[in-house]
């Protein structure tokens, strides 16, 4: 395929709010362009991982190449690049977009524009992509395509009259979409004879081939034997294989040139060498400057991850090592907790990323984990002028050494129907949000703009948003930067002993409230012992809240009827099983679930 005429290539992606039908449309495009028979189709071809299928979201970007014979009789090469749909992976989204020349905007005919729709479409426009809209789910009884078309034109300001009205699920209007791709997405440009310049938008570790690097060629040509240089990481390697993406498999070819999307392998051992956003060039004939927009991926959320069974520590280490081969955004380093023993402090892009890693560790590596409450990175400015990035609350220096602290702030946009503006504003207020403004999208919907501390939204903000708007609010955010803030460390003492794994950083104005709720929650979680157990919350050594777990007075089965010993034993076994899942802190046994208590403080609402 090396001699494909650039004018016959279309590199594009699909952007949409979650559940508006992005993956289904991708499936239909792949199906109609015929490279796959229906039998080969899995329910959703692009989403490879089980987890992705279960959650109905795309975690990692993927790409697929198909051939389309257009009505004008010409054959076109379509490179469809799938983008992650979650704010945790915003940077990866931006690199995927940079690999495209255009985008299809999918909007649900019933729900209209949502917060993610806006965020993603603006991101696409920022990358100078040509965007054309598609109205999906027109077969729904509640579909209002005309209203949605108007909304797109009013709110986003792109032409929407006459756009394809489709039902991806039922295969309606797909041909129109295919023709629109040919007509509305521009062909790539770029000189195949110029020095090599390719953008890495994803990579994958394969135990046989090493890292498989996904790239979009902007200039030049790459083939077997090319000595490549990754311009940011400075890694070099000799290309073993180049190829393009068949649906679900890799198809080798002789060479790839400017305008094309494909992969190369070069026996690279670690995805860290092939960072997303980096520029690949020819080490012997490098391009003058790298492509813009490269960023080192930074963890936003940290938590402690410990094996439930201390003896499984080496297994956890091996599992993290293996996961990291494929996930450059996962960071970890060993740490020790008095309460939990040996484990790791792990860094994630966001809470979803954290959950995904945790689930993969538990499912794929069969590990039983205890995780501590997630926190963000605080900047601690010390009196000696140095600054430390604090990822573990236990490492907070003595208050006398702290000049001031800063916390990460995000700018968020919340799309909400007007009925719920009040309750959503109240929620943002409670979460220390700073109101920036509000725009009405149409009569019944508004876009609220807030600045919020990241540590207020990483736990249960999405859930709270959903429950307080009955599901009618959507949210998107961007990291804005750091701001000085009055932060304190909240410590929890169980039977007068500080439990390091339960400490967290909190704003001083909410410390009392959080401490009180935390004690109440722990009182529910910690079982009665032979003695009374005080549970206290403290800030800087001062107790601010207290609850007491009363001593156990009675634990006896009065009657044991007709020799039914088995039933009695089952009861005792259950009791013993429960004990196994406890952590001994001093002379108190704390259930593993208690270490996540801080996440559930809003349960009562």
């Amino acid at each position, binding site marked *: 395929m090396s001699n494909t005429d650039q004018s016959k290539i279309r590199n594009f992606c699909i952007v949409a709010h979650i559940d508006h039908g992005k993956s289904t449309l991708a499936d239909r495009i792949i199906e109609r362009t015929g490279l796959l028979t229906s039998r080969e189709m899995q329910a959703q071809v692009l989403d490879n991982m089980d987890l992705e299928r279960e959650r109905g979201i795309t975690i990692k970007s993927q790409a697929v190449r198909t051939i389309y014979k257009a009505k004008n009789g010409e054959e076109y090469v379509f490179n469809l690049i799938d983008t992650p749909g979650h704010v945790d992976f915003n940077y990866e989204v931006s690199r995927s977009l940079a690999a495209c020349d255009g985008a299809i905007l999918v909007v649900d005919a019933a729900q209209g524009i949502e917060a993610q729709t806006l965020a993603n479409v603006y991101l696409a426009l920022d990358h100078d992509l040509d965007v054309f809209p598609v109205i999906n789910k027109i077969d729904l009884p509640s579909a209002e395509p005309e209203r949605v078309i108007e909304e797109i034109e009013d709110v986003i300001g792109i032409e929407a009259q006459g756009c394809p009205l489709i039902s991806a699920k039922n295969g309606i209007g797909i041909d129109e979409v295919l023709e629109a791709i040919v007509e509305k997405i521009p062909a790539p440009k770029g000189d195949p004879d110029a020095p090599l310049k390719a953008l890495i938008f994803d990579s994958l570790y394969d135990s046989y081939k090493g890292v498989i690097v996904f790239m979009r060629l902007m200039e030049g040509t790459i083939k077997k034997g090319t000595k490549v240089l990754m311009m940011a990481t400075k890694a070099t390697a000799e290309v073993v294989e180049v190829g393009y993406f068949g649906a679900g498999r890799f198809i080798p070819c002789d060479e790839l040139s400017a305008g094309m999307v494909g992969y190369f392998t070069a026996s690279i051992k670690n995805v860290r060498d092939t960072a997303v956003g980096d520029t690949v060039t020819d080490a012997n004939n490098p391009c003058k400057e790298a492509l813009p927009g490269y960023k080192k991926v930074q963890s936003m959320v940290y938590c402690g991850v410990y094996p439930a069974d201390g003896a499984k520590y080496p297994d956890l280490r091996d599992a993290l090592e293996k996961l990291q081969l494929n996930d450059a955004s996962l960071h970890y380093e060993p740490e020790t907790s008095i309460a939990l023993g040996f484990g790791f402090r792990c860094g994630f892009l966001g809470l979803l990323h954290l959950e995904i890693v945790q689930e993969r560790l538990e499912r794929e590596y069969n590990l039983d984990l205890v995780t501590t409450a997630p926190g963000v990175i605080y900047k601690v400015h010390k009196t000696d002028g140095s600054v430390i990035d604090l990822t573990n609350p236990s490492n907070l220096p003595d208050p006398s050494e702290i000049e001031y602290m800063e916390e990460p702030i995000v700018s968020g946009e919340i799309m909400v129907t007007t009925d719920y503006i009040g309750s959503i504003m109240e929620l943002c207020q409670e979460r220390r949000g700073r109101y920036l403004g509000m725009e009405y999208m149409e009569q019944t919907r508004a876009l609220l703009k807030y600045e919020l501390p990241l540590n207020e939204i990483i736990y249960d903000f999405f859930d709270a948003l959903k429950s307080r708007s009955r599901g009618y609010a959507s949210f998107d955010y961007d990291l804005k930067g750091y701001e000085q803030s009055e932060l304190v460390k909240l410590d929890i003492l169980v039977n007068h002993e500080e439990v390091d794994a339960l400490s967290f950083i909190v704003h001083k104005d909410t410390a009392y409230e959080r401490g009180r709720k935390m004690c109440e929650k722990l009182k529910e979680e910690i079982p009665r012992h*032979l003695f009374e157990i005080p549970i206290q919350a403290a800030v800087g050594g001062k107790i601010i809240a207290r609850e007491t777990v009363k001593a*156990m*007075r*009675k*634990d*006896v*089965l*009065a*009657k*044991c*009827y*007709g*020799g*039914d*010993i*088995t*039933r*009695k*034993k089952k*009861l*005792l*076994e259950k*009791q*013993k099983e429960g*004990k196994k899942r406890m952590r001994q802190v001093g002379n108190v046994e704390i259930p593993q679930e208690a270490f996540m208590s801080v996440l559930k403080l809003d349960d009562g609402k």
Partner: protein
Amino acid sequence: MMESKLFYMGKENRSLEIYIHLPFCVRKCLYCDFVSGPYGTEVRKSYVNKLLWEIDSFFEEATKESAEKYTCTSVFFGGGTPSILPSEEIDRILCKLKGYLVFDSPEITIEVNPGTVKPGVFEKYIESGINRVSIGVQSTDSEELKTLGRIHTYGDFKETLRSAKEAGFTNISADIMTAIPGQSAKSLERTLREIAASNLTHISAYSLIVEEGTPFYEMDLELPSEEEERRMYRMTGRILSEYGFEQYEISNYALPGFECRHNVGYWTRKEYAGFGIAAASLIGNKRYTNTASIDSYLGADHYETLKKLRTDSEELTLKDCMAETVILGLRLNAGVSDGDFYSRYGKHLRDVYAKEIEKHKREKLLTESDDGRIMLTPRGRDLSNYVMADFL
């Protein structure tokens, strides 16, 4: 099963306790979670026939393994209210058992409820060989009896007791209940004193447990707090001892020498065979429980079918047997004798459970005598599940 001999004391002189479940009652009590119900005469008749058939099937199979007969040390008719059944039916069951077992003056108990024993029936029981009666009185307070959904009065109890004694029963037990909704320390004391002064040999005093699936579970009851319940428990022991009743098990008290042999058999891991629905058995190293469904029980034509309907069937390992010996033994005030343990398993208690024994001694929940016997302390009895779980 060669190794099975390791776990009990050989087949020579093998003794067996018998439990017969008769799931019939006049009306179900509000707290009752036992398998019982007010069935009609036809069902009762078919049930007894099926029960006799089960006894036949069981012993035919047992005889195949060993020609030597078991010696029967106790029979217990439990329910329900076994006294609802005509005394002839009880006699048929006992005659059936005598055909298969050597009866070496066993303890034979029948549970009765006040107001359900017709005149002349106790005499019939004596003729059949029954030598112990257990009367479910629960309380002497009429309000409390009403709360529990009992159908009798304290007067009915006195009447039943009188006719049992007149018929010649000398070994009589009464069941009472503590922690009844609305019960006060004062009313409990009255019940205890009235019952203890009734010339009985044995008293079982159970704290009410509200079980899922009973009407009590659905009701908004005012139950005593844990602290009150424990106070009542200690008061029970104190008052009963004034009348000569010594506690020998978590919920059981007796005049010296009148401990219930059948129940002590459970706690000392004697073999027992249970017949009828929901009846449990321990034979060799195997525990099992019959189906709780009367329809399935009546519908089983083959013994194999009945065996398939059993639940909680388990082969016990050596470790299970040792754990059971300790857990069950600790229910008795006498605790677990190291000598007995050693003669059964060839190991001392401390060879197996040193860590557990030390832990609970430290917590003052367990004591150990010089000859290695372990027993729960009074506080240990309050928290017995907590202690026992560690020996599993």
